[in-house]
């Protein structure tokens, strides 16, 4: 029995789609991250019940943090964009979170800077506020420890290949860290949209649209590049083909990043003898009905699709490319994420 709705929607399901293929399916994956972060802050007494947790977000992290605050008796304040949609806005209001909406420009870096400026002023004026910094603070890894433990139980023994979109880097980074620390042989495969700077593809662009929730035009400290073995860059068109194929083949109704992960996971299966390939489906497909699923009859199957295999990110090309990433073997010293905040003066 779950103690709270947030716990229920944060728990993933392991779904076996083949003898060597598993879908780790979430309803809202970021709730797992927010719950773990808030629990960690309370346990370490970095915050007290009733304090206010603040961050900038215009998307699913805002809802995840509001739910985690509801779960643990905290206040929640979000600095977001005027583009926050009605579905999110009303949920935040009813959950008791407060939302400041700032007009966006077409430059994400400047928008983020202006929102951080606003968060900074709030923090100076309100000593009871705590800045979550979802992109940079490794406390957002902590909640995935239980997911790694669940995966270790439900897919016992044998080497794993984990395939997932990389957004803030917390879910993929944490799963690799915790499973490797538990002694599992894990290959980590990241999925990126074209145009994302996270793995050096800022020089490219997708003519259709960016896959929501993965990739970025700014650097995130929670992306630990050294953890990744291979990166796939997938276009919207091919991610959509993956999402439709996932629903058609398995009944799993999930979003575009899950579609891209399914596409890449199927390709990785052919190159992963003796390994179980686990791909992540971080959310449901409801947000993507019009953009991805409605024209399913015109969407090609994925059996005939193949990536450009390139040496590095300089050579990537639409609609799908893959390159080994210059990953170094993690040392015992950096195997586990360190819950950190960030800079201040040092010695």
């Amino acid at each position, binding site marked *: 029995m779950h103690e709270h709705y947030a716990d229920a929607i944060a728990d993933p399901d392991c779904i076996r789609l083949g003898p060597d293929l598993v879908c780790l399916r979430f309803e809202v994956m970021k709730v797992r991250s927010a719950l773990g972060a808030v629990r960690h802050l309370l346990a370490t007494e970095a915050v007290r019940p009733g304090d206010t947790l603040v961050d900038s977000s215009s998307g699913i992290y805002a809802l995840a943090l509001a739910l985690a605050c509801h779960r643990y008796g905290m206040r929640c304040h979000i600095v977001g964009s005027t583009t926050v949609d009605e579905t999110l806005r009303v949920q935040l209001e009813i959950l008791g979170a407060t939302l400041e909406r700032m007009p966006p420009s077409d430059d994400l870096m400047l928008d983020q800077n*202006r929102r951080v400026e606003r968060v900074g002023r709030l923090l100076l004026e309100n000593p009871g506020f705590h800045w979550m910094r979802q992109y940079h603070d490794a406390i957002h890894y902590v909640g995935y420890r239980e997911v790694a433990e669940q995966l270790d139980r439900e897919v016992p023994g044998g080497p794993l290949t984990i395939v997932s979109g990389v957004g803030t880097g917390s879910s993929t980074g944490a799963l690799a860290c915790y499973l490797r620390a538990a002694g599992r042989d894990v290959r980590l495969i990241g999925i990126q949209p074209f145009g994302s700077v996270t793995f050096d593809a800022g020089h490219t662009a997708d003519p259709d649209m960016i896959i929501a929730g993965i990739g970025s035009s700014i650097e995130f400290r929670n992306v630990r590049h050294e953890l990744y073995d291979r990166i796939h860059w997938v276009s919207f068109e091919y991610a959509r083909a993956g999402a439709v194929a996932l629903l058609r083949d398995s009944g799993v109704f999930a979003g575009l990043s899950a579609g891209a992960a399914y596409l890449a996971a199927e390709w990785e299966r052919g190159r992963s003898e003796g390994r179980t390939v686990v791909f992540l489906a971080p959310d449901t497909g409801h947000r993507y009905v019009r953009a991805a699923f409605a024209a399913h009859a015109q969407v090609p199957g994925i059996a005939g699709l193949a990536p450009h295999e390139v040496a590095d990110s300089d050579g990537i090309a639409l609609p799908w490319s893959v390159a080994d990433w210059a990953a170094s073997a993690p040392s015992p010293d950096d195997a586990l994420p360190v819950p*950190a*905040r960030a800079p*201040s003066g040092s*010695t």
Partner: protein
Amino acid sequence: MRRPSHAGHKPGPPVQPGTATDWDLHALLPHTLSADEIRAINNPSRAIHEHRTYTWNGWDFDLPPGVFHPGETSRLVHTRLLDGRLPVAGLRYAAMGAGLGVEAVVAGVRGAGVVYALDVHPESVRTTVRHYERIIGTDGPPLVALVADVWEGFPDGEQVDVVTFNPPAIELPLSDDPEIVRNLCLGRDIATRFFDQLVSRDLLAPDGVVYLIVSNTAPLRDIVALALEAGFGAEVVHVQDWPGDDVQTYLFALRRAGGRSGGKD
């Protein structure tokens, strides 16, 4: 792309000011000490969770829990700001990682045009404001106190002439205490973000200078390489070695290509 690690090499003699610049200088710099040496030298104290005091140059500072107590490395910067070897008079100065506010106070005393104090830790920024108001008062240069994540949160469209940056760049998890990690152990990515944002948002004036202080307990060569790759020239302003260990601490002046020289030791 990642670079191979040569951590643990015994350092050669310290590279003195004037010996070399830029990539020639980079080639002479020491590699990072071994993990065991770094752990032996850095024994983080949990006193950061207590209320403390600090006295320097006749000024008394009050340190609430979580605000960092300066060490010898910090004082290498403080003394050089105070005696003018790192000039700030009439200039727009930014203290990156304001801590308890010593740099801001000294820049106020030295007559900076404006003092920006940035720190990700809100209580450090509040502490800087309190010390600045008490020691400098309202007759000194204006203080702009910002809770910011490196440069994220610094106002767009503004520039500075002088920056001091003492990054918490040790890459070993010396502690699982987040306060200690925040102050000591954030690795080279803090330097990456510092230089990326400084350049991409054009925050440093054309003749501006960054005074960067970093030791071979951190990925010193990689951090200098990041600065060079970001388009800065590098020279040594001061090098300090310490009795009883192999630590070398370098104070670098970093300028955009074509910038004037300055900062003497």
